[in-house]
């Protein structure tokens, strides 16, 4: 974690379905790389965090201190990927579903 960048960026997270108790009915995958977003969205924000115009304005307002209580923008997933999951339904039939927005590809300040 000490080597992780301080600015808003994607961090590695592997989710194992056994850890959250879903392995009883999920056939595949056993686990997947979900990743997560964390880091600062402080003014001035670098290009890599791809801030929206609103996030840029909000960070300036916070930095100037005009309005008290304004937080810095949040580091959140920007582009995400889907994940195919093979599982058993309530009647023990095999089902395949492709769920959207299951893993993070890029993060951004919003």
């Amino acid at each position, binding site marked *: 974690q000490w080597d992780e960048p301080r600015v808003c960026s994607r961090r590695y997270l592997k989710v194992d379905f056994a850890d959250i108790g879903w392995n*009883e009915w*999920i056939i595949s995958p056993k686990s997947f790389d979900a990743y997560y977003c964390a880091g600062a969205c402080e003014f001035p924000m670098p290009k890599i965090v791809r801030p929206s115009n609103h996030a840029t304005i909000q960070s300036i307002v916070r930095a100037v201190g005009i309005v008290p209580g304004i937080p810095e923008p949040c580091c959140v997933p920007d582009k995400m*990927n889907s994940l195919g*999951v093979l*599982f058993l339904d*309530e009647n023990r*039939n095999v089902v395949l*579903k*492709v*769920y959207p927005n299951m893993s993070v590809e890029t993060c951004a300040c919003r």
Partner: protein
Amino acid sequence: SHNAPAWSAPPAAADDLRGDRDSQRPPGEAASTLGPGAQDMVAVHMHRLYEKYSRRGARPGGGNTVRSFRARLDVVDQKTVYFFNLTSMQDSEMILTATFHFYSEPPRWPRARELLCKPRTKNASCRLLPPGLPAHQHLLFRSLSQNTATQGLLRGAMTLASPLRGLWQTKDISPIVKGARRDGELLLSVQLDSGEKDLEAPRPSSHAPYVLVYANDLAISEPNSVAVTLQRYDPFPAGDPEPRAAPNSSVDPRVRRAAQASGPLQDNELPGLDERPARLPHTQHYHKHELWPSPFRALKPRPGRRDRRKKGQDLFMASSQVLDFDEKTMQKARRK
């Protein structure tokens, strides 16, 4: 139609395809329920679809869902009938395509021998062959709602050619399944009619027919869709004591408060506990209204911490530090 060897995949090959990451953990319970060695065709077929559509951007049949339905064998009027329970389909799933997969066995030995017998043979067994064996098998599709005693509404009929060797055949039954669903009859029956009087010999599970339904789940892009279908138990088991909750606490999360001072007050010290209306913690209030409706048990909301807005204010002590006098004494003190 497709040849049987194209669909069969030894378990070892399937395991290799899963990659090293999945092999780090022992197979879960779900994998073991696919069948002995995962050799039944439903499991093999679905796994191949999973591997195919796990690639980014790939969509199974233009949708996002494939459901498989195994057959339940029954005998009705001395006829072999396969039943498929399609009730697990969600209302949000729009059917795109439905296919029926059936393993056609080669003709029984009299027909096989007929093919092997040459004309004008002197072999006695060849001369005893019965004529006119059926070269096709007929499938009758019916649908009915559950808990009905009728045979069901005839939805369609198909013919399967009898192959020379074992062969998996696929038939498009989209109109049949769509019509059955439209009418609310989600129990599909398939009667095999080969023209033979005797019942069909029981098939091994690996040769049992099955139905695949390709659908587009319109609700899959909704927030929390993954939990609606995959979260089935409360991750916080029942019986675990909630933190900071008294054993006899009521359902109402607000803390009861009561003024302890009975007489008039002459100073700015509050007599007893804080008399301001108890404010619901922000997070608790959020959980009360924002949980998604689900047929399964949802996450237990955890009580939020008390929100203290005024900084620097001393925590009010539960017991008052002010002396309490009767009204007569207070009146005398005021006069003085």
